[in-house]
């Protein structure tokens, strides 16, 4: 660069910095094409491994601006200087090839699929490296597989596609998946991986369009992830969005319409069956028949599941325009996604827009990736006691209650909604139809996410990059509650609304220098850098009571309401500064080494513990390149090993110090005035430290038969120390507002991962490939820090408890700790022999194992609890099969998860002989029906001052293994059948390719689990991951789609 040009370059630099801060779209100038005096034309055809022509392949003369793309027949034509130069062929999904012209005028090329190729590049954070040079554990997920899934978010589509990546999906519109990489290494809060989208720390939640994703890399071990230091302990997923390519403009459009249904329901009794069974139950318990049951007239027969469930409709439309020259490229995409849920009044939609551009000018390269999305989520009020849960209520609700009736209209129930009444038929099930009519929560998220960067090539092989990232979201949630009730004994409320506006803001500045230098057989590359990030959330909420109503319609602005007003708001902010560096060394393509370091300073920790250092190292040996290696059928073999320390900062801002809570109030004075109080409500641990995860990884990558068969194997052991736990505290401490965080000990995760892929060298019309992965992860608690000392034994307490689970040293996180059942008492002699339940049990009651004082008349109580299984799968596996015959293609994805135990809390509710409707499967024990697992029929609750039969009540204990089941399942995650229209079919109207497809998702699930879906998210995603407490099941989705390219 000459001095003359410098001020101009400097101007560019500053412009980009400012542009990055403001995150404005940067419009890229188009580059110049070169001029040459003496030229010749090279033509040729580019095809894939099976001989099919590849249209749209970029062909470029290396080191120049000359280039073009192949046409629909895969043919290109390029003017090049006579006889010399090298052509570079590149195409998404295929390995780039360089071929010297060598005076030829026709050069035909066969491109090799990237996934099979070791030449492809992989993004590993601040750097890209050749896949073959990887030393750490990096999973590459092909978008070919993820794009087949009807997914609201990117992580959802990852299920089963990469070993060690566990994804638990729910089925609600707008619901996010739970992702764990290599087991659970934290107890608290967010155990999700860190996501990097185009160089910006950002969650690819439902606000990001999965269609924009070009590639995903999963960084699993310490060496791969250490460049992200304190945030990498749960693994890192790097997402790169699509870019424009040389040539074009290329227009692609796709549409997909899907029908979604719940594949399974609990079969519940109709009104007549209910009346019969409920009558028998009350008679068996000696209670008067419930008045409404006794008076049942046959008119009402509500199927509550039918009232709530509906056929969902998912629509997904995308359009992309992309293109570029040698010096600039662009991609503009727009998407619309609409998910009408399978459950009444639940909808989600997203509009998304993206502009990605990149421009080169001399030694500078400028680029930006910017996405704007607006998404809406509409639901009734969710969560908490008031709202109930539809996946309990639709089954528990009693069929002799109408959904609504004019007869039921009263001052407290102006809508006339049907629900339980102690004086008619007793149930506390929520009328979810009423809830959906009375309440609504509309959330709107407007998000801007992107980055802009400037590269400056200081010297050959030495490049500086300034990267500015921004994620900001303007969110609004409007919560409206109209007048009315939806369950028995509900507190009557006046109508009200709250309007919550919040802004999330995260901005990032990064300065990195990449270097790349070869000295003979020694090759070095790496990066050093400095980054700063600020993350803040601020919200303001206003609310008011008594909405105005005219003609039955509610006005829903704050000013239209007339009652008392309320407001609240807060600001939370934290900062992170980091230094980072990595060096990769390669000797003769045989010995590889990687050293990585990151130092993070994070304001969420107290000054004493604010800085954390995270180093790692990895070594690899490409055995197959050694001279002595002479096994012809092994085409590639690389051994790898790594060790490193990662961190985790699962904290909110200001959590390391205690605060006064100023909300409590008291009433004093004959005027009964409300006065303010202040107190510490939540306990804190002032010495919160970084979580540290030390990971050892050993593995090999192998290619056989000219890489047609590839295999990767990994064995890892990760020990997390100072793990943050939301420590469940005893009530006597008086702690409120959630469990305080403490650094509490150590968890080990170890496992094996195997990934195998095979692609036969077929040349005919039939082509296929198959890939499978297998993971085994074992989770064990090693230490639990200072949970207090047992004064009697002088030993550390060895467990924390949450719900019906216990996390204990030497065991997996969240194992069930419950009473054991032992069948049903068949006769009085068995009861007498058992003794512990003799005071109340009758034949037909559940027999519990009396572990403490077994065989005495000591009652069954909580001391008799024992461990009863782990919620974690013993083994998970995914399989992908793709095939094509001429223009037809068929692909399958299977996912299996085996050995996990689930606690079915919905079944507990339905089978407890309480106020619920009964399942049609209910088969109570009677003296003449003894071969059953259902205890004798009765009523579990006292009625009108007459005590319940203690035996019946005892049968319904929640803390027993009666509700724990094997949750193993094998699921056909996706099957897709597609037809690509022949080239010439639409070429006259400019359509270069067209594809139609039919696909089915979750077509079948093989499982013994009695619940609606064994793929549960969990009551507490970390400590109670296997508890099905009304989990929204995944839908069965049938889609029809079309794709066009112009």
């Amino acid at each position, binding site marked *: 660069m000459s001095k003359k040009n410098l001020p101009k370059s400097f101007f560019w630099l500053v412009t980009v910095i400012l542009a990055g801060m403001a995150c404005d779209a940067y419009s890229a100038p188009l580059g110049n094409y070169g001029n040459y005096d003496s030229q010749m034309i090279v033509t040729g055809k580019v095809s894939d491994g099976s001989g099919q022509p590849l249209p749209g392949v970029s062909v470029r003369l290396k080191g120049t601006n000359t280039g073009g793309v192949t046409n629909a027949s895969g043919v290109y034509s390029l003017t090049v200087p006579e006889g010399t130069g090298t052509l570079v062929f590149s195409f998404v999904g295929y390995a780039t090839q360089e071929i010297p012209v060598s005076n030829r005028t026709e050069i035909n090329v066969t491109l090799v699929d990237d996934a099979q190729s070791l030449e492809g590049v992989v993004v590993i954070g601040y750097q890209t490296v050749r896949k073959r040079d990887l030393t750490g554990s990096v999973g590459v997920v092909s978008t070919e597989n993820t794009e087949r899934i009807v997914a609201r978010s990117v992580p959802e589509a990852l299920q089963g596609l990469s070993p060690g990546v566990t994804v638990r999906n729910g089925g609600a519109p707008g619901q996010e998946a739970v992702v764990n990489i290599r087991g659970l290494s934290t107890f608290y809060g967010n155990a999700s991986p860190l996501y990097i989208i185009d160089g910006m720390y950002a969650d690819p939640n439902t606000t990001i369009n999965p269609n924009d994703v070009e590639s995903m890399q999963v960084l699993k071990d310490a060496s791969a992830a250490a460049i992200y230091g304190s945030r990498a302990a749960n693994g890192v997923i790097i997402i790169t969005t699509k870019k424009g390519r040389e040539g074009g403009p290329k227009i692609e459009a796709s549409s997909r319409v899907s029908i979604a249904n719940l594949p399974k329901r609990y079969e519940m009794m109709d009104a007549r069956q209910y009346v019969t069974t409920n009558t028998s139950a009350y008679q068996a318990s000696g209670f008067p028949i419930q008045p409404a049951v006794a008076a049942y007239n046959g008119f009402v027969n509500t199927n509550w599941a039918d009232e709530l469930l509906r056929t969902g409709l998912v629509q997904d439309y995308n359009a992309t325009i992309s293109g570029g020259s040698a010096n600039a490229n662009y991609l503009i995409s727009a998407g619309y996604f609409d998910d009408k849920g399978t459950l009444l009044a639940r909808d989600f939609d997203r509009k998304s827009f993206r502009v990605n551009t990149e421009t080169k000018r001399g030694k500078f390269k400028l680029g930006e990736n910017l996405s704007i999305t607006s998404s809406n989520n509409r639901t009734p009020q969710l969560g908490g006691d008031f709202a109930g849960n539809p996946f309990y209520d639709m089954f528990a609700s009693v069929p002799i209650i109408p959904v609504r009736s004019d007869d039921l209209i009263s001052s407290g129930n102006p809508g006339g909604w049907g629900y339980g009444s102690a004086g008619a038929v007793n149930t506390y099930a929520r009328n979810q139809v009423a809830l959906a009519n009375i309440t609504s929560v509309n959330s709107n998220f407007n998000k801007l996410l992107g980055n802009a960067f400037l590269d400056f090539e200081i010297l050959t092989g030495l490049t500086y990059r300034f990267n500015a990232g921004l994620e900001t979201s303007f969110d609004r949630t409007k919560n409206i509650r109209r007048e009315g009730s939806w369950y028995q004994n509900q507190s009557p409320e006046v109508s009200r609304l709250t309007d919550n506006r919040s802004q999330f803001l995260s901005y990032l500045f990064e300065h990195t220098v990449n270097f790349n230098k070869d000295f003979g057989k020694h090759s070095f590359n790496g990066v050093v850098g400095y980054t700063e990030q600020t993350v803040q959330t601020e919200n303001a909420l206003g609310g008011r009571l008594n909405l105005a109503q005219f003609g039955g319609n509610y006005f829903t602005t704050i000013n239209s309401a007339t009652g008392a007003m309320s407001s609240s708001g807060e600001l939370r902010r934290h900062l992170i500064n980091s230094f980072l560096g990595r060096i990769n060394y390669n000797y003769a393509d045989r010995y590889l080494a990687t050293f990585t370091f990151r130092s993070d300073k994070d304001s969420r920790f107290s000054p004493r513990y604010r800085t954390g250092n995270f180093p790692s190292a990895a070594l690899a040996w490409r055995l197959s390149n050694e001279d002595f290696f002479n096994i012809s059928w092994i085409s590639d073999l690389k051994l790898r090993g790594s060790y490193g320390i990662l961190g985790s900062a699962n904290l909110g801002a200001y959590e390391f110090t205690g605060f006064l809570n100023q909300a409590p109030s008291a009433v004093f004075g004959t005027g009964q005035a*409300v006065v303010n109080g202040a107190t510490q409500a939540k306990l804190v641990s002032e010495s919160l430290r970084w979580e540290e995860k030390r990971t050892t990884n050993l593995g090999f990558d192998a290619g056989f038969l000219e890489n047609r068969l590839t295999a990767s194997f990994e064995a890892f052991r990760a020990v997390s120390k100072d793990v943050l736990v939301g420590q469940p505290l005893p009530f006597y401490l008086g702690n409120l507002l959630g469990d305080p965080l403490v650094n509490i000990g150590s968890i080990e995760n170890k496992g094996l991962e195997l990934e195998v892929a095979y692609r036969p060298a077929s040349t005919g019309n039939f082509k296929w490939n198959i890939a499978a992965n297998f993971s085994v992860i074992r989770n064990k608690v090693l230490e639990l820090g200072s949970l207090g000392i047992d004064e009697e034994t002088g030993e550390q307490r060895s467990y924390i*408890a949450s719900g019906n689970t216990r996390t204990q040293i030497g065991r997996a996180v969240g194992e069930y700790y419950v009473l054991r059942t032992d069948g049903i008492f068949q006769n009085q002699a068995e009861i007498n022999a058992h003794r512990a339940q003799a005071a109340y049990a009758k034949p037909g009651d559940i027999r519990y194992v009396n572990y403490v004082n077994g065989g005495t008349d000591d009652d069954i109580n909580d001391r008799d609890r024992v461990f009863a299984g782990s919620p974690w799968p013993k083994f998970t596996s995914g399989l992908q099969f793709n095939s094509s015959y001429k223009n037809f293609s068929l692909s399958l994805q299977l996912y299996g998860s085996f050995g996990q135990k689930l606690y079915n809390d919905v079944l507990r509710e339905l089978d407890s002989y309480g106020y619920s409707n009964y399942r049609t499967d209910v088969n109570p024990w009677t003296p003449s029906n003894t071969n059953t697992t259902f205890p004798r029929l009765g009523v579990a609750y006292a009625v009108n001052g007459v005590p319940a039969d203690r035996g019946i009540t005892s049968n319904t204990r929640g803390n027993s293994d009666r509700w724990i089941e094997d949750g193993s399942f094998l699921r056909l995650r996706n099957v897709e059948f597609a037809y690509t229209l022949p080239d010439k079919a639409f070429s006259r109207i400019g359509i270069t390719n067209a594809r139609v497809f039919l696909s089915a998702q979750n077509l079948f699930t093989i499982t013994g689990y009695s619940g609606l879906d064994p793929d549960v998210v969990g009551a507490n995603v970390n400590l109670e991951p296997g508890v099905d407490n009304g989990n929204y099941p995944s839908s069965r989705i049938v889609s029809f789609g079309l794709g066009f390219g112009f």
Partner: protein
Amino acid sequence: MKRIINIIIFSLIILAGCKRDFDEVNPNAPTIASFWKTSDDAVKGVNAVYGTFYRTAGLYSRWIYYHGTLKSDEGFGSGGDGGLNNLVSFNQTDYNLPLTAITWETLYVGVFRANQVIAYVPDIEMDPVLRSRVIAEAKFLRALFYFNLTLYYGRPPIMLSPSQPEDVPRNATTAEAYAQVAKDLNEAIRDLPASYPEAEVGRATKGAAYALLGKTYLQQRMYAQAADAFAWLVTGPGASIYSLVDNYRDNFLVTTENNPESVYEIQFNENLAENTDDDVREDLINNTGTSIAQFYAPPPVGFSDGAARRWLIDEFLQEETETGQRDPRLSASFLYSHTDPAGPSATMIYGETFESRYGTGPNANGVWFRKFLNDHWKNTEGFRSPNNYRLIRYADVLLMYAEALNGSGSTAEAYPFVDRVRQRAGLPTLSESKPNLGQQAFLNQLKHERILELAGEGWRWADLLRWGDLSPALAVRDPEFTNFVVGRHEYYPIPQRDIDLNPNLTQNPKY
């Protein structure tokens, strides 16, 4: 090259100029270290302890009345709350049942708040009189919380300083726990005023502390100490402060709150804008009323989760007043077909006659506790009743004083205090109608007197426990007692969560 480096340095400087304050203070709330500095902080701190009364359903908003009344032979679970119905029929399998666990938790929330005041206020530079008073108020409240913990759970661990996550106390014995209650009250008595200006009514007074101290001793049948404590109110300086109101029912009306009979009264206020019972939600508005009226009121106005046993009515009908009338306390205590002696057609249930509401239907025999209801001023109920709870009434103090005197052998001296209570109701004095009772006979008479005077006010369980009367024999009055196991059901189970989290805690016997 040099220029290029300059560019990089320059751009670094630009960015370094961004504000990077790693020690930014939380803009949302003061830290503990910056609080507890002024008298205002001290008063706010103790206000939050009183705030515990309103927190959740666990205490004086609702459930503490269930524990004292529905679980006893006075009442039963008459509504649709199966968990409650099983609990008060001594059929509890889940030791974390919210009805017992949340009452326990909320009492300890109050203890934690009181402990903060007691630990931090002594170091505040402020008016020493106010400082002593604030600390004494906190001690009174801590004593009240521990009194309830001991009464219902028997063996609570004792926390006396602000909680730390690593605290693993052992159970106190019942005697140790009551001793702590007495210690706090004795210390509070020293610094509490006998009364407050109007705007401060509702704060703990010396008389309230003496009364609770007496209750604490009496509950342990430490009669002499109990009598000493009550004496301050009955024959000492308190005698000029407290008296029985002429109209018994004035103890339960919103229009006659904080009257001279009220020794300690929890102040409730109707806040229509409230949207939470969770009083630490800074984004919501607290409920400072009580929901008990909604849950005790007869249907369809209330949920009728609890109702009274019919034998109580017979107890009232044993004696007539001196003018031949029915004991006026009967209609003040219950809503039933004859709340108005003229019968169902004259008895009003929230603006409608009993007859027209219930006719001969399933509710025709219903008996509902009336004392916390608002039927005297409106025809609806809700979760925000403003009707104050008279936690300790002077009539209760008089009867307890009599019990203490009788217990320590001074039966004759006990008569006048029972007489005062009976006379206010219009009954002949005991001195006339049943003179010269022996110690046991007098106690038996007191049991009857306490039912008539205090039915449905939440003290019946404590009375039965103190008298040793809890047994399956009560099933003749209350069939729920068929399940009663002596040695087990006197106390609730300690929440299993706490047993699971603290190896030093043991469960109550037979659970």
